[in-house]
């Protein structure tokens, strides 16, 4: 049988640290514990889009098809999914529609935050808040787009 896990200590570290935790007051919490907050911010080149509590752009991956997390393995190294820590919660910040928030199981373990059914990811190429350098990139088997507050991907018109 193939082992599909990583030493427990590292997994635990990833779960805790991968999420953008926040204690923002202007949020609607869904559970108790550490909170992952999504908000809306203006990002250079793309306008008002979803971002983490620290201002990093959030992306959707077309192959996910608003249904499930398909970016795993090396893909998840480049596009870290936004994890909801075990026992944690998620919350809608200013401009975010609370009803569109949800979660999907990550095939690699844990839970990934979704918006409008899209699993949410950050991009390692965004090395500072306010960037969206992964917008419209075709990588790891599909295209990546930032998400608008209405839950739709920002797909440029040809």
């Amino acid at each position: 049988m193939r082992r599909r896990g990583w030493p427990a200590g590292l997994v635990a570290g990833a779960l805790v640290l991968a999420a953008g935790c926040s204690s923002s007051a202007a949020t609607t919490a869904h559970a108790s514990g550490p909170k992952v907050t999504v908000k809306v911010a203006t990002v250079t080149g793309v306008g008002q889009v979803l971002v983490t509590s620290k201002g990093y752009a959030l992306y959707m991956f077309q192959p996910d098809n608003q249904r499930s997390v398909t970016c795993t393995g090396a893909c998840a190294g480049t596009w870290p999914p936004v994890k909801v820590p075990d026992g944690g919660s998620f919350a809608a910040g200013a401009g975010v529609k609370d009803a569109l928030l949800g979660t999907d199981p990550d095939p690699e373990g844990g839970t990934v935050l979704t918006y409008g059914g899209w699993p949410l990811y950050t991009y390692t190429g965004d090395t500072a808040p306010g960037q969206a350098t992964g917008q419209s990139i075709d990588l790891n088997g599909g295209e990546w787009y930032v998400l608008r507050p209405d839950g739709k991907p920002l797909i440029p018109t040809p």
Partner: protein
Amino acid sequence: MTTNHESQKAPAPLAPPTSQQSPPPHQTRRSLLFGAGGLAVGAAAVGASWAATSSPAAASDGIPPDDDLMREHGVLKRVLLCYRAMTTQAASGRPLAAAHVQDSALIIHDFIEGFHEGLEEGYVFPRLRSGPLASTVTTLLTQHARGRVITQYLLAQTRSGSTLNAVTSTKLSGAMQAFVRMYEPHEAREDTVIFPAFRKIVPAQEFADLGQHFADLEHQQFGGDEFTAMVARITSIEQALGIYDLNQFTPQIAPYLT
């Protein structure tokens, strides 16, 4: 300046994708290169007990993760040589073949950007983000992102699959030059600074486990020995560009004999 990316602070959990088929039981590049079992013994010696039983398909693997990444850098270097040959070709007024550019860029897109860099970003860089190499890591991440943009450009411009006109050849040549100029120092810095630092801070057991995990991920993503497949692809491009024969790069030494 440190990278303050909140989702990059720890390696992602290592379970491979479940959406992929299980890899067929075949030889991996590691077993091909080193012989079955040879390095697995070494891995076990540093405590990689679970790695040895983790995957029948990769049971004879044991290449350390940094060696694995540097081997993949070899593929990148050969694409850079192709890019350089094509920029020389364009500079001499000979139009580029779209297929040569496209094929080279696809190797970068599929293997380097779509796999190799994901390993670096998911497992190597996060360990170095808070130390003295933090600013270097930030630069490397930025360069990965810029490189992907250039690759997208090269692929988009060569979709037609025909011989390119002089204007387009010049534009693509500029893009390839920029890519080469960035990636030569980039990979050299990773090989000589980043990977040694990574090896130094990761415990031996974990290091061996990670090498095994990289092998598993490669099988999961590509379903086979992708390294060998990539070497074959780049060889074909080199042959088409007339740069495959190593002899042509050997200098005459008569002028230097004293």
